[in-house]
């Protein structure tokens, strides 16, 4: 059954200098992967979400199109759009996000002139103190 959930965090700060649908895809993807949006949940209609967020409906349509391409949501004709129950698809998306997180982490370490391992090691020592 439908459990209450927020599709996007509230408030959600939109950056007007970047494609908006990409920001929505990123945020919703993270919430599906982390389980904040349960699998099988029904998504609001394009119209509803566009009106609620004050954005162009094309932006929402594109967001849903992209999430559908990734395999995180499915549309059943006449019934609506739902978060997939396919754990493989969710796992796949999680892996992609994990890889990106690692890349960001490594980049942050490199900025400090150390390796990711050294940064983790530091965290261990630091929390033992």
């Amino acid at each position, binding site marked *: 059954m439908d459990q209450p959930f927020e599709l996007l965090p509230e408030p959600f700060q939109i950056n007007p200098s970047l494609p908006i649908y990409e920001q929505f895809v990123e945020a919703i993807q993270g919430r599906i992967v982390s389980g904040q949006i349960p699998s099988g949940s029904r998504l609001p209609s394009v119209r509803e979400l566009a009106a609620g967020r004050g954005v162009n409906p094309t932006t929402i*349509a594109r967001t849903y199109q992209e999430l559908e391409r990734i395999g995180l949501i499915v549309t059943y004709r006449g019934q609506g759009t739902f978060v997939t129950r396919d754990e493989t698809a969710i796992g796949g998306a999680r892996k992609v996000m994990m890889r990106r997180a690692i890349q960001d982490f490594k980049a942050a370490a490199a900025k400090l002139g150390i390796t990711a391992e050294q940064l983790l090691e530091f965290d261990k020592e630091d929390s033992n103190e």
Partner: protein
Amino acid sequence: MSEYILDNSNSGIGVSAEPAAVECIGLGLTLRKKSILHDVTFNIPRGSLTGLLGPNGAGKSSLLRIIAGLADPDTGSVEIFGKPAGAKRLGELSLLPDRSSLPGWLSVREWLNFAAGIYPDWDPAKAQELQAKLSVSAEAVISTLSRGEEARLQLLTCLSRKAPLIILDEPFTGVDLISRERIASAVVAELADGARTFLIATHDIREMELLFDRLILIGGGTIRSVDEVDTLRRSGKSVESHYREVFA
């Protein structure tokens, strides 16, 4: 998803089989020896939500009046859905003018009954829905409304018609923030339930920029740029920063 078809022909400048909602070619207008519009050429694809932005005196209102068929250009032509603009197109477009023209002595209810009588495409169910959404009280006399309430009544009047082209000239002038947000979401909700085309002239870039998919900048009576908003964002620009760049 199934209810909203993503039509890429609306977002590109490419050739589409259907005529554009608005097609302006070489518009020129001179009033008292002063050039108001010069060689204004652009088109607006069907279903688009286009922002017309520019400083005061840029020629926005004159341009919108010509598109609406309320004024004639000295040169050039305007087509609305492939047919010449003019009085015959009035049934296909709904204009919210920049200055209020509502009869102050009527109550809101009397005005809406009157409007239902004069517009053949009036949608009473939509009028009722918008009245609730925009919180416009039926009993109030128009002359006693605040600017914000009057602006909402104007929008309600404009959007309660089934016309496929909606033209809003500065819908937010003098309107408080809450009203603006209500108006903005009403505009979006309205667009989303059909293939209607919106052309909106406004100074309120920040309130509106997430709504626009297409942007026309006009300054000193000439078109300064026509862009797809997504293309701007891909190059790291917002509607606002692009506006500042062009008019700096």
